[in-house]
């Protein structure tokens, strides 16, 4: 499925981009990420533990920064598994300065495979939207621009 969104965070465009294109810092921006391993300047893996009212979900993901244009664009691809299900996504973020802050517009393509494709078909898009917003908010903090 395709999901898109737009968020403005109180962080400089260059600084935010620097976080999003740096596996080490990007991994730290993932909500509840653990066991982070940075392989090189474009690849890292992490176990995400998004916690909802449903309980804790363990998603082992491998990420790759597949495309990056300094200061303005980054495309992050991720794939991983949660139990008997697979998740694959590709998020393209375009950054534009907006006053002191940065407006991030993003489009994502999301695949869920396994029984989850049916079980979470109403929710996955919304969950991804929340995750991306959380990453951007955390990214803004990490970029040293204080809180949004």
């Amino acid at each position: 499925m395709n999901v898109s969104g737009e968020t403005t965070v109180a962080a400089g465009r260059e600084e935010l981009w620097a976080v999003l294109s740096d596996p080490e810092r990007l991994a730290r921006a993932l909500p509840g990420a653990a066991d982070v391993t940075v392989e090189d300047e474009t690849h890292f893996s992490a176990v995400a533990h998004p916690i909802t009212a449903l309980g804790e979900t363990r998603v082992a993901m491998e990420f790759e920064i597949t495309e990056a244009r300094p200061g303005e664009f980054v495309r992050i691809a991720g794939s991983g598994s949660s139990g008997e299900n697979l998740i694959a996504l590709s998020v393209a973020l375009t950054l534009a300065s907006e006053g002191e802050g940065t407006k991030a517009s993003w489009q994502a393509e999301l695949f869920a495979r396994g029984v989850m494709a049916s079980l979470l078909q109403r929710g996955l898009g919304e969950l991804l939207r929340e995750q991306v917003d959380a990453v951007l908010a955390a990214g803004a903090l990490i970029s040293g621009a204080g809180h949004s």
Partner: protein
Amino acid sequence: MSTPTGETTYYPEVEQSERLGAWSGKSVPRKEDKRLLKGQGAFVDDLWMHRQGHVHFVRSPYAHARIVSIDVSRAEAVPGVYATLTGEEVGVLQQPFFQMAPEPAGLMKDYCMAVGKARYMGEPVACVLAESAELARDAGALVEVVYEPLEVVVDGIATIEAQAPVLHEEIGSNVAWHGLYDFGDVDWALEHADHVVRIDRLHFHRFSSTPLETTGALVNWDPGTGVVEFRSNNQMPMFAAMFIGPAIGLGIDHMQFSSQDIGGGFGIKITSYTYLTALALLSRKAGRPVKWSESRWEHLAASAHGNERTFLDIEVPVMSDGTILGFKVRAFDDAGAYLRYEPLGAVIWSQVVPGNYRFKHVRVDYTETLTNKCPVGPNRGYSRLQHLWLIERIVDIVAKELNFDRVALRKLNYVQPEEFPYETPNGCVYDSGDYPAMLDLALELIDHDAWRERQLASAGSGKRIGIGIGSTLDSGTNNFGQSRIINSALPFSGNGEAAVVRLDLYGEVTVTIGTSPQGQGHETTAAQVTADILGCSPDQVHVVAGYNKAANTYVGFSGTYASQFAVTGLGAVMGAAERLRGEIVKVGACMLGAEESDIELADGFVRLAANPEAAIPFIGIAATVFANVAELPGELADSVTLNCRYVYRPPFTVPDHETKRGKLTLTYASQVHAAVVEVDDETGQVTILDYAAVDECGRKVNPKIVEGQVHGATGHGIGAALYETFEYDGDGQLLNATFGDYHAATSLDVPHIRTGEIECPSPFTPNGAKGMGEGGGAPLSTIASAIEDALPVGAHIVYDTHNNSERVHELLRSAAQAGPRGVEVISR
């Protein structure tokens, strides 16, 4: 009412038994019910064996992927895990399953688990055997499978285009079968018709009757004897054996099948042989009995689905008086990823080429295709209901476009009562029926005229009323020779069923049959006809519950499918009971010192018709033959067994492969349904306000059981028409993998169903009965018809069998958009 004069020009004279009547024809309460009501049924998940292990299947989350590697080491390391089995091993241990398709599709290599490649989401790639089911699932999560995803194709028509990914390299394309069915002269008809109605596209969706009990089995490969015991809920074991045996090198004598109570089948449990094969291999590897119970999501994603079919470029020649000459169409049937009963569906629809109508010219260019979806299997109304829905859509659309009254148009074109037995353009013979009378009765049951008035009165109220009609056929007792129409090399023809009726040591009458019932009440109806023939009460007849290959008799066709029990099953029971009766009379006459012609059987006694006091109870006959035999003359003692087997054989010949003509089925039960729906103008939500089902199935053995089958088939049709569908996304993921998203119709969804009675005995069967139970999918036609009737002028035609609120909402809106309506009329 049809008079069966001249039926001998179609089939040899059938003598109908005069003994039936004391019990058959009556709604005798079912013998099965006590145990089922008390929770004493024995369903497959209720069975267990010493040392059994529990099985969990690891399934592909991809719809199409190469399997790079499978690592089971972590799973096998779990304490309590007995064994694992992977597709890689299966590729060595199993020969590909026998294929009924001719080459190239016949070259398909189908295994019990994915070998090298997974071709639909949910396909098993490995399985784990452990001491508990919980543990097996835990360990299953540790099986590491590396997949290389491949391009996915889910569209049943696009899949045969050049750029589509090929599922089975050995076939070289995604075409499973193609053939032209051309009867009469449709080109001449289109040329000479006053009007030609052209319909762009009609789509029959994927669904399943989803039995409430999922598939399961307890399988034990006995290392000592080499006999493999399959305790399962497979509903056609002899068919399953035909696939399992050659695949893993087992003779029929080394396969023991049994089932007692089966929690619904509807055809979906015919193709479970793939799982039975995997379980047999796992049992041999582990040296243990293995038990598997399918979860609901596994059942929905990876058991079997009903056939999905798309009809393109439909052209219908119509005369100005309303006579419909026939039609031509291109049909694409989507078989899913493998052919496990297919391509039989590619011929079975032709049992009902003209539906209930006198169409003379029909051309169907039929293609069956392969896609990355769950393989299809026979589902209630199998392959005929798709075609019958097409025909009913054609009739309604012709009526609407050419301003004919739908009722009058049907009556004009129906096969008329006096025309039975009626030969169709492809040589099938409709045995009997009275469709106009059934239609009148159905309309009377819903009070058609009153609803027409309310329909007018409701204009502008925001609630639109629609009235629908559906006329269909339930062809029963297949001639398996029709398989030669799709593959001339197939060695099947005719049909039959076997039964044994015996008088046991203490005078008990015991019946065994080759069928494997799933709720159709065979124990009861078999007891009714046996009681009639032996002059006793059904309570004195013990019909052995369920199927057991070692104890029951069988033939290659044995099983419960294709609306045929009342003809083949009871035909066999009647034949065997008659033979037993003959022996009882012989022995009784000897013991009473009378002529056989002086003997009558009544109340469980053999007695002199002239002097009922001179009587011997059945036990006296049995005790003499089995334990006091010296009192009988030797030649008599040698000639009776009191253990009588009979095989009923319908009078079929082999259909012609070239012309695709032949007698494909023996009986034609018919259905005419009528419904009133209310459509919410703002939401598109459909509510059924009234529903009537008039089903005709010849002479009824047990009217209550017949009515129950009508209710059930109607419930399935209504569920499919409005709520139940299997939809895949472009990635081949099933979006209805639970009963939440696959909305099985509830008590609030299925309305009260009025039923009407018309009886047209079949001249071709020994008891005048026609098989029934599958129904012809009349509700699918009826609901589509009713929704279309509710739509505003100028709306698009109802083009799909499945019409949820959003689709109906689109149809409602289409009227205002003045876009294409999916139909055009060319008049001369």
